[in-house]
């Protein structure tokens, strides 16, 4: 007991100064989804398997698809990633998804933004 007390006096704080210092998530942590429109073939298996109906695949042109992911509905189970035959979906470690405006929780991954990760929804999170 006394040893515990002494150790606690000398130890640095157990908590992190959160917004400044961020904790590293586990290697395969299930966070925000990422969609690669160029790989999607529009089979909609992900829509069928999603437990909450958070993902919607829309046809926007000849063999072109975009995905709308409702981050408020998503339970981050990653089943859509497993279901996808063409690996068009990927799970990322990104977890800071809080929003004040519910509309911002709906993220659309279209062709025009392809390649660049949708950083937009995350910016308001820390404020």
């Amino acid at each position: 007991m006394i040893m515990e007390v002494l150790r606690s006096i000398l130890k640095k704080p157990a908590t992190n100064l959160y917004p400044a210092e961020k904790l590293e998530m586990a290697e395969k942590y299930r966070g925000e989804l990422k969609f690669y429109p160029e790989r999607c073939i529009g089979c909609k298996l992900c829509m069928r398997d999603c437990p909450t109906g958070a993902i919607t695949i829309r046809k926007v042109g000849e063999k072109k698809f975009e995905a709308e992911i409702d981050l408020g509905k998503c339970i981050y189970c990653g089943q859509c990633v497993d279901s996808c035959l063409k690996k068009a979906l990927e799970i990322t470690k990104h977890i800071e998804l809080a929003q004040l405006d519910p509309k911002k929780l709906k993220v659309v991954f279209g062709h025009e933004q392809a390649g660049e990760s949708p950083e937009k929804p995350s910016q308001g999170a820390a404020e």
Partner: protein
Amino acid sequence: MHNSKEFKIPIGPQHPALKEPESFSVALRGEKILGVDIRLGYNHRGIEKACEERSYVQDIYLIERICGICSHAHATAFIQAVEEIAHLAVPERALYIRTLVGELERVHSHLLWLGVAGHEIGFDTLLMYTWRDREIVMDILADLTGNRVNYGINSIGGVRRDISPAQVKDVLKAVDKLEERTKYYIEVATEETTIIKRLSGVGVLAYDDAIKLDAVGPTARASGVARDVRRDDPYAAYDKIQFNVITDTHSDVYGRTVVRVKELMESYGMIREILKKMPEGPIAIKAPPRRIPAGEAISRYEAPRGEDVHYVKSNGTEKPERVKVRAPTLANVQAVKHMLKDRFLADMPIVIAAIDPCFSCTDRSIAIEDGKSRKKNVMTWQELHDYSIKWHRERGFDPAEINRKFHKTMEGK
């Protein structure tokens, strides 16, 4: 002295001592409890019905959310039933991974319980210690499965994630650390006089009563009933692993503490053995079926709190026809009633906490039956609303009138 007077006090549905909404109506004489009436239904979420409207794949994640603590228990029990109906041969390695996650979950659940029990008896140091150590196992679970709770490790016919040699090393390291800490808790539980005096003789459930009331899990084992599904009806890889069923003869809350702490030590041994014996090979069957042939199955699983029973009936489509869940708390709730009888009111929080209750797992819907015609009826939201207004009016309280007054004052400002 007020001892001669009998009175009833309601504890819950909303009460600071309860973690979840549940109604206990306690009949008291002085400080002594004469009887307890437990009414379930405040936490009902209709998961069983919702399962019938979703496919098997979606149900795994829904079933997993029955309980936040023993999510793997529910998911595995469900998936075992589905695999039994479809006659799927699950790869050996998948079974070992399921068992591993199951045991890690038991470790985290028992550590959590130990902290809650410490908190209920005012021993908050224990809460801080155990919950700090629980972080170790939570981190391991997040690393192995991808989430701290609701692991989502199961899929039909296997598991979704493999375990790498580096992860094996991490788990072993964590287990070593936890074992060292648990030895300290055993010391605390067996030598600390505060704990022994506070918990001994509280919430007694004799061996005969435990059998009669069908107690399960650590509650039954603390009364000397060696009842453990892992040994009685082995599932996953439990038939290949050595372990002892821990029992205790104290039959009270102290006994339940001892059983849980000792079970932690058993779990560490099992985790090491699983990692040593884990065979190489695939982790899931190729192309799991979406349609499950018609049939029915019952699956049992020893959750950290006790035996969890799932019943699944399929009809050859993508969706189950019926899913029924019997959570361990439902089996133990009658035992709580018995334990509380003739005890003091002050013992109530720890006695209820000692079965490690999960009321949201347990909750059932209530069908209203007409006393005369024996007709069951279902109320719509509007009917229920009208009924409640009528009920209050008959007792001289008009919610509509109060509502009007309230709006008037608000507008006046």
